[in-house]
């Protein structure tokens, strides 16, 4: 007969579920904010941003070629060496935000560049400034190209939050390992975890589909 979950197990899973949700939410928000900002810097042709463009472009190229687990360790050890007293959860959020923002930078930059240069030139001949062109011409046309892949990418990243267990964060994957180590049936434990991951990512998937439809219609 299979051993049922005790109230402690349920509490552990609930806590791990909230941690995974928190990592996804905060890491995703950080990745979107950082990726959008860096994407705009890379897209900008202002001379003022030229050194920043080099740093951001180079940084993104390097970070995207490193496995997430290595980025996680790097952030973990660098924060430790710098003497900052930050929790493993915060380190995980920073690592997710860092690697996520490098991918989102590419998506944002690609979406912005997809707007025809003729339309930007038309706006220039009409004496529109850079900010007005971005607001009235580029963003409305590039958002349908940017938002769905960014959200799709975040769904992929929810699964990668499992790697936070490597630095001691008790998220869903780590909770599963703890429960199986305590003798609970592996299939039951990880099937439950599968459902919990689905609960987090499915609403985001539905949101992407709705947003895609809305953006295409608009």
């Amino acid at each position, binding site marked *: 007969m299979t051993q049922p979950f005790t109230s402690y197990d349920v509490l552990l899973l609930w806590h791990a579920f909230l941690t995974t949700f928190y990592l996804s939410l905060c890491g995703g928000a950080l990745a979107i904010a950082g990726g959008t900002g860096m994407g705009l810097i890379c897209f900008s042709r202002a001379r003022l941003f030229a050194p920043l463009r080099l740093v951001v472009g180079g940084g993104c190229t390097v970070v995207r070629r490193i496995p997430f687990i290595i980025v996680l360790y790097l952030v973990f050890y660098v924060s430790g060496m710098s003497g900052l007293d930050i929790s493993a959860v915060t380190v995980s959020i920073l690592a997710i935000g860092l690697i996520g923002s490098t991918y989102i930078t590419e998506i944002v930059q690609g979406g912005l560049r997809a707007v025809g240069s003729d339309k930007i030139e038309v706006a*220039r*001949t*009409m004496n529109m400034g850079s900010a*007005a062109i971005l607001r*009235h011409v580029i963003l409305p046309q590039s958002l349908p190209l940017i938002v769905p892949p960014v959200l799709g990418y975040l769904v992929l990243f929810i699964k990668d939050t499992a790697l936070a267990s490597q630095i001691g964060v008790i998220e869903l994957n780590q909770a599963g390992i703890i429960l199986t180590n305590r003798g609970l049936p592996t299939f039951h434990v990880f099937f439950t975890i599968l459902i919990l991951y689905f609960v987090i990512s499915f609403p985001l998937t539905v949101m992407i589909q709705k947003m895609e439809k809305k953006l295409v219609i608009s």
Partner: protein
Amino acid sequence: MSYLEFRNVQASYGTNPILLGVDLDIEKGEIVSLIGPSGSGKSTMLRVLIGLTPLSGGEIRLEGKPIDYATKAGLRAVRSRMAMVFQSFGLFDHLTVEQNLLLAPTVVGKKKRAPLLEEMHEVLRLTDMQGHDGKRPPQLSGGQKQRIAIARALMLHPEILLMDEPTSALDPIRIAAMSDLFGKLAAQGVTIIQVSHNMDVVRSLSDRIVLMHDGRIAATASPKRDQDDNAAIARFMAAEAHQA
């Protein structure tokens, strides 16, 4: 002193020279048509004049004063006197026709939308596009898009109207109507510089035809005054008409 003077104007795309020293005088209210083979520098003349392609040499004078393309203020000043109709139309697909027409006057000109509506309806009537103001560009035909691009340029009240193939997507009836409109604008003092491969439009509309070849002016002619120096132009126009 002419209204608009090109003096040894040179321009290049990267290392590829396009304009190799163009000298041209244009009077206020004149309709000038630039013709010539592809790559001869016709569109670049328009782009240089409105500051989209930088000059690599020479200068352009407007009412005797050199146009300052190097500063934002100079660019703003010259662009506030011009409007350009692009060959690709360049309409904003996410905006309705009304929003396309009112974007610059409201965002750049800081004008209120309501007083502009009457003017917009008049411009749409002139371009025979009345009743289309709620549509978006993807819902319009090529010819309709072209007329909206012309209407959008007219909303800017340009002193100089630059048009790159402004009748390429129009049927003969619309071409006649648009030619009539351009003639009326010129009579009101609007200077029109157009690039066109439609030799009927060029012949009937132009005060002056400028034939460009390899980044230079090869010949000019004034069809309305029936000058003699247009043998090269006549040959080019005959060849274009034959191809059409």
